[in-house]
């Protein structure tokens, strides 16, 4: 299981950031959240977080073995005892999804709330979902099939979807 984000339908409300800091830090604080919505004009609202890669570049470079795989859940957790705040994981992550906490200096990243991510619960738009790659792929295929089989009128909306995407590259 992993968190899958769909920036094209994200509304940019940032409830995920609040849900994350609420669950993991007991406060409301986007700067402490393990997920972040990157907002850029005109139409980028992209939720970004750890993709639980395997093999995980952050775990590979960690000199103390502080980042290890949770056996049951298939997600990576950081041991605060072992972390020496060297920041090598920050350099290694291709997505900027891992950072050092400003106060504790310990590396922090999403650990799927140990299996039940709060951000997913709070995203009513379903721009953040929890799923297995196969499910996600099938869902994407189904949506593509629907698009291709749409009537003429609906093809017009599909064109506007395309415009939506091209906008992101302004």
């Amino acid at each position, binding site marked *: 299981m992993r968190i899958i984000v769909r920036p094209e*339908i994200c*509304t*940019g*409300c*940032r*409830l995920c950031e*609040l*849900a994350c*800091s*609420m*669950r993991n*830090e*007991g*406060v*409301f*604080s*986007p*700067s*402490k959240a393990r997920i972040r919505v990157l*907002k*850029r*004009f*005109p*139409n980028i*609202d992209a939720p970004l977080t750890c993709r639980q890669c395997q093999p995980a570049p952050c775990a590979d470079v960690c000199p103390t073995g502080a980042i290890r795989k949770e056996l049951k859940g298939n997600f990576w957790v950081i041991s605060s005892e072992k972390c020496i705040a060297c920041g090598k994981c920050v350099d290694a992550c291709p997505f900027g999804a891992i950072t050092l906490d*400003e106060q504790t200096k310990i590396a922090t990243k999403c650990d799927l709330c140990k299996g039940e991510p709060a951000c997913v*619960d*709070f995203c*009513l*738009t379903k721009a953040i979902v929890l799923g297995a790659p196969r499910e996600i792929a099938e869902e994407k295929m189904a949506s593509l099939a629907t698009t291709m089989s749409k009537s003429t009128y609906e093809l017009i909306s599909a064109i*506007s979807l395309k*415009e*939506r995407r091209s*906008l992101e590259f302004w």
Partner: protein
Amino acid sequence: MEKGFVGGYVGTILYVDLSTQKVRKEQLDERFARTYIGGKGFGARTLYDILKPRTDPLSPENVIAFMTGPLTGTAASMSGRHCVTFKSPLTGIWCDSGAGGDFGPEMKFAGYDGFVISGASKKPVYLWVDDDEVEIKDGQHLWGMNTHECVKSIRRDLGDEDIRVATIGQAGENLVRYACISYDLYRDQAGRGGGGAVMGSKKLKAVAVRGRGSIEVRDIRKFEEVVRQDLADHFSEAAAKNDPLMTNIILYGTVNGIAIFNEYGLLPTRNFFTGEFEGADKIRGEVFRERVYIAEKAGFGCPVPCAKLSLVRGGPYAGTVHSGPEYESVCMLGSNCGIDNPEAITKASLLCDEYGIDTISAGVVIGFAMECYEKGIISKEDTNGIELFFGNCDAQIEMIRKIALREGIGNLLAEGVKRVSEKLGKGTQDFAIHVKGMELPGYEPRGTLGMALAFATSDRGGCHLRCWPIGEELFGKLDRFSTKDKATTVFRQENMQAMRFTLGTCEYYTQSFHKLLSAATGWDITMEQMLRTGERIYNLTRAFNTREHLNRKDDTLPRRLMEEPMPSGPSKGHYVKPEDLNKMLDEYYAIRGWGNNGIPTRAKLHELGLSDVARDLEREGYVA
């Protein structure tokens, strides 16, 4: 510095004096917080205490306060809002103007429940609040920029794309009396009452904030439980299925209202001449969705994406990118000016945001000017050759520019419809659509007596956000043409709305306030106590206005709405009869515990814990 009361609140209020360039932080007092809760309440008490009666709104003595509420920036549904309070240059009385978006929450993440800004700078400046660091920075290079240029420029100067900025455009600089405050890029506005002009008069081009801190609440588990319940009960997919209004707002935004209000003959058309617009089908929500909207966006912390990102794809306005337009803008810039072109309305609404003008007031002022033009009161010479007929969208767009830059006739129109009609004379006051100087929004009171009373009694003048009885009149138990139960409805809703604006929540949000506030602060608060606070605040703003000589005579409507029966449509023949309005006012004052002259009684103020206010009013000779 030690923080004051924390729990929902972050414990500090920032005071900035632009005349002396001095900055001071004050701890938030728990008793003050509990009495006035936040937002509008904090603003009302602060302004009442600081401002002397009859202060000129555009003088350095006026104060503009950005106030958040205890729920602003938390995960509570629809809670990203904050309130800007000031004495309005448009009306000369109390004004609070709300805005959503990332700015209010960012203030709290930076550690402040409010910014209270007084004095005036000699040169253009902007305020930069970076967590604990506060700096008044030179803003001369920003002067003259529109709102979006200014946001981009500040972010570039400070080297961070995620800084939140509240700014004014050229309209605010030029003291257009209904200039708004605009937030971030193509996002939110604190639209009404001329907050932008107050900032302009202080030479304060912008307020920029970055916050990396946290908001603590006392019982986070309880808080989370209530929020989850709210989401499941009201905003989940299952809940949306049973709530057509919510579904429509997600699909069409608030523009959904165009078709509804037109159907009842309540859509202001051609400067409130009638309530039925023949072009309504061309500007309804479905058309906007098909032709203009490209994405659904939501305010901070809000599960309902009512904001729409728009792109005009063809025609003369091609390339216009805009967040909006929402219902009031479509109505006032659209039907009220006889315009039925969604692309032109989108462009006009964008221009208002860029120059920093309130779309509602702009729509009414331009609609009024169009009527004057058609009646020959304003000539083609006056308009510099512009043919200011109803329905001429290019003329409207040109007028918006002229108003913002105070160019030609725009210099006159920038004063607001009340002052313009007084200047023009020739009977134009009869169709100058305002209450207490503030232009009316998109609901025709001639077919809904509840809205007539709501507009008449609103504490900031012609406004739909103090209460919205039209909902119960059209979809509930009330008869829209009768005066029955209107006073109680308005009383109840006004207190409820005042309370919402203290918390930092949206006007659509009605659930679980007391539970959330209790979990956040550790107080044990009941709904009744919260409504009591709403009532306290409403009495305080009323007292603020009483000190400005307002009384019953000001709780009235423009002559057109009280004398001209609606000429067409489903509300045809109806008007707000003076005796009906008087009857509703009598009932309303009685329920409020105010004198028949509309002045709060000593007993009522005493009961609400405002004895000092009662003494002030008596000392100055305002007796109920």
